[in-house]
């Protein structure tokens, strides 16, 4: 997030797209509810009628995959009506003209045609967002224009044009000068406890800790020096989806999986399974025998986050301490201790520098101290400084207070760059054989592949079974009633589950959460067309067909 969670409550206009905030990030939805109760406008753009729509002052429901037309048309309107922030554009950004030219073609009429969202709603959303208008009450900022913030999540990134979507929202915020101030910005809501931190410390194929490109010789050299190794690999690695392709092709032989369940969470599960079965070595290090574990050669028992010390970095870039609350069961160990041991052994076997002694860590805190040496955005941090409320990166020095708001005076790259983005359709469109669109996501009571939440007694009690949410119109066409069994087919596979008939999804769209091993949604999703830049699979859009087993 460019801004902090607490600022949301003071926003004048909140724009949420591709985020089922109340179910996936309930505590952030509390901030949104507060803001709305104080009089903020809440604009939601989502194909599903998500629970937060109950609080929205404007709800735009585009056909799946067509939201970018709405975003582009909003900007078209903003420029046409002169609602943009010309000073901000002139002083803080570049490449505006090329971007503005592209927008000329994206009229609200065209967007309405493509997305099914009425023109007047697009114009209304554009106005409220650009000018930061409130429904009632007074802005705490007391400026000519109110402060508008954008919240988004996987609904717009897990798409074959996810990067375009994100750039478009960035364009929108810059166009209106709604960035670099409190209660504004472009705020992705990260789905997992430490997804931000895992990225920050280099858990990505193209960057070292602190987002230092692996291809940059100088930065790579500095890290190598700190680590006292001769050299570090300089080519961008394979992402998880690419790796499964490579495994099938016989290029990848071993996969070490720590605390993940790719068989459930990666697209096209059948394909993933084939790849994993082909491996010479699959190491699964986890707290439970996950679905993936049943294909592994070796299982390593890990301590859960309740059983170890360390740090998590949340979606607002806040690095916070986690602490050991209870002991781990049996012989389970903290992940870092397992890795350190394996690393020491492999170092010895491969005779790597600086030798196994370098992998002796006595505590999480000593690892963190080393981490800050190679991670510039963390370099001012220490466990002591993280008391009591953590620090938000960048925190480059020991006296730096952390950074609640990014891009205040200048963007990371200097000037904010407008990207001229065109709308693109999803990779897999519906056709006669697969006439419906499947979209995946979460329900409130479960988390990811359900490894933890489905083993929690109260959460299981509340939501024991999976279901596919189907619009009454589609259900009626197939003679499906609420609670009936239904079979979902896609080009990749088949899943059987129960129906939940609800007008929360529009006609033509089916929603299936990906928590249920009995109905693994990712048997249906596709892995052939990834976002070209971010390599994100298009979980949110797959063409499917429903079958009513009773009708056989």
């Amino acid at each position: 997030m460019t801004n902090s969670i607490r600022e949301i409550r003071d926003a004048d206009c909140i724009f949420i797209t591709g985020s089922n905030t109340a179910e996936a990030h309930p505590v952030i939805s509390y901030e949104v509810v507060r803001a709305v109760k104080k009089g903020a406008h809440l604009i939601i753009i989502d194909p599903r009628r998500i629970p937060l729509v109950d609080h929205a002052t404007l709800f735009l429901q585009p056909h799946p995959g067509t939201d970018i037309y709405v975003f582009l048309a909003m900007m078209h309107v903003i420029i046409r009506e002169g609602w943009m922030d010309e000073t901000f554009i002139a002083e803080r950004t570049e490449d505006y003209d090329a971007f503005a030219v592209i927008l000329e073609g994206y009229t609200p009429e065209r967007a309405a045609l493509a997305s099914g969202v009425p023109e007047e709603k697009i114009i209304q959303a554009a106005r409220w967002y650009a000018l930061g208008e409130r429904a009632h009450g007074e802005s705490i900022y007391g400026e000519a224009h109110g402060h508008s913030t954008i919240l988004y999540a996987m609904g717009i990134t897990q798409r074959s044009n996810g990067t375009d979507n994100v750039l478009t929202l960035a364009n929108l915020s810059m166009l209106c000068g709604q960035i670099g101030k409190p209660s504004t910005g472009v705020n992705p809501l990260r789905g997992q406890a430490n997804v931000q931190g895992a990225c920050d410390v280099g858990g990505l194929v193209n960057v070292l800790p602190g987002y230092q490109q692996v291809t940059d010789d100088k930065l790579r050299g500095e890290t190598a020096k700190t680590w006292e190794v001769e050299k570090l690999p300089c080519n961008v690695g394979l992402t998880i989806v690419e790796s499964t392709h490579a495994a099938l092709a016989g290029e990848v032989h071993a996969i070490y999986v720590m605390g993940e369940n790719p068989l459930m969470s990666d697209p096209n599960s059948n394909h993933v399974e084939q790849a994993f079965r082909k491996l010479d070595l699959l190491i699964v290090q986890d707290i439970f025998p996950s679905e993936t574990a049943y294909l592994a050669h070796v299982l390593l028992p890990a301590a859960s986050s309740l059983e170890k010390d360390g740090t998590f970095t949340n979606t607002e870039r806040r690095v916070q301490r986690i602490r050991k609350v209870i002991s781990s069961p049996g012989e389970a160990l903290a992940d870092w201790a397992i890795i350190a041991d394996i690393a020491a052994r492999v170092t010895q076997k491969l005779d790597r520098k600086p030798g196994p002694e370098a992998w002796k860590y006595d505590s999480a805190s000593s690892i963190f101290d080393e981490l800050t040496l190679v991670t510039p955005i963390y370099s001012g941090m220490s466990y002591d400084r993280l008391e009591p409320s953590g620090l938000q990166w960048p925190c480059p020095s020991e006296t730096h207070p952390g950074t609640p708001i990014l891009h205040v005076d200048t963007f990371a790259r200097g000037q904010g760059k407008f990207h001229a983005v065109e709308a693109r359709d999803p990779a897999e469109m519906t056709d006669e054989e697969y006439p419906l669109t499947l979209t995946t996501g979460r329900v409130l009571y479960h988390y990811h592949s359900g490894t933890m939440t489905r083993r929690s007694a109260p959460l299981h009690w509340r939501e024991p079974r999976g279901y596919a949410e189907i619009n009454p119109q589609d259900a009626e066409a197939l003679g499906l009633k609420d609670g009936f069994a239904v079979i979902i087919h896609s080009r990749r596979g088949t899943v059987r589950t129960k129906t939940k008939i609800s007008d929360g999804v529009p006609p033509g769209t089916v929603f299936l959460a990906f928590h249920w091993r009995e109905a693994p949604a990712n048997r249906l999703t596709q892995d052939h067309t990834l976002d070209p830049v971010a390599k994100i699979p298009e979980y949110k859009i797959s063409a499917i067909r429903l079958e009513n087993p009773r009708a056989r």
Partner: protein
Amino acid sequence: MSDTGSSNGKQKSKVHPSGDDRYVALDRTMKRFHNEKDALLEVLHSAQETFGYLSEELLFYISNHLHVPLSQVYGVATFYHLFTFEPQGKHNCIVCTGTACHVKGSSEIVEKMSAVLSIPVGKTTEDGLFSLSTARCLGCCGLAPVAVINGEIQGKATPETIAKKVGLILADEMVVQDQEEAG
């Protein structure tokens, strides 16, 4: 105001049983107030007038149409004593217990009627024929004590006159019943 479509999140939208005209009247009231939340009290009045009492289904229906949480609808409905959650008797007797009526002995009328009908105040006889209730002031203090039987005000009432009046109504009902059984 809020422009967010019709259904209400988790609360499934229940379509009213088609053919029940009474919902049409209710819909008309809600429409008159543009389905604004603030019209809740007016809508509850209209619902009770049309249906006789507020059933669970009815509150659910109102909650969905006005976008007022069901718990709030329930909370509001139970706050006001005029709303009732049970079907009312075919006939009713309301005894005023305002100050003027009180000093002129209205509590004796209440006691008497409660005994005659064998029901406590606020209840309906098992056969659904008669409901007994009290009102805090009907504004007819000049005629105290006052009771209202089937909408007709009985001024300067006594336990006996009211019991007699109710007795007559009940006797008529018996005749009707006998006739129905015979027919």
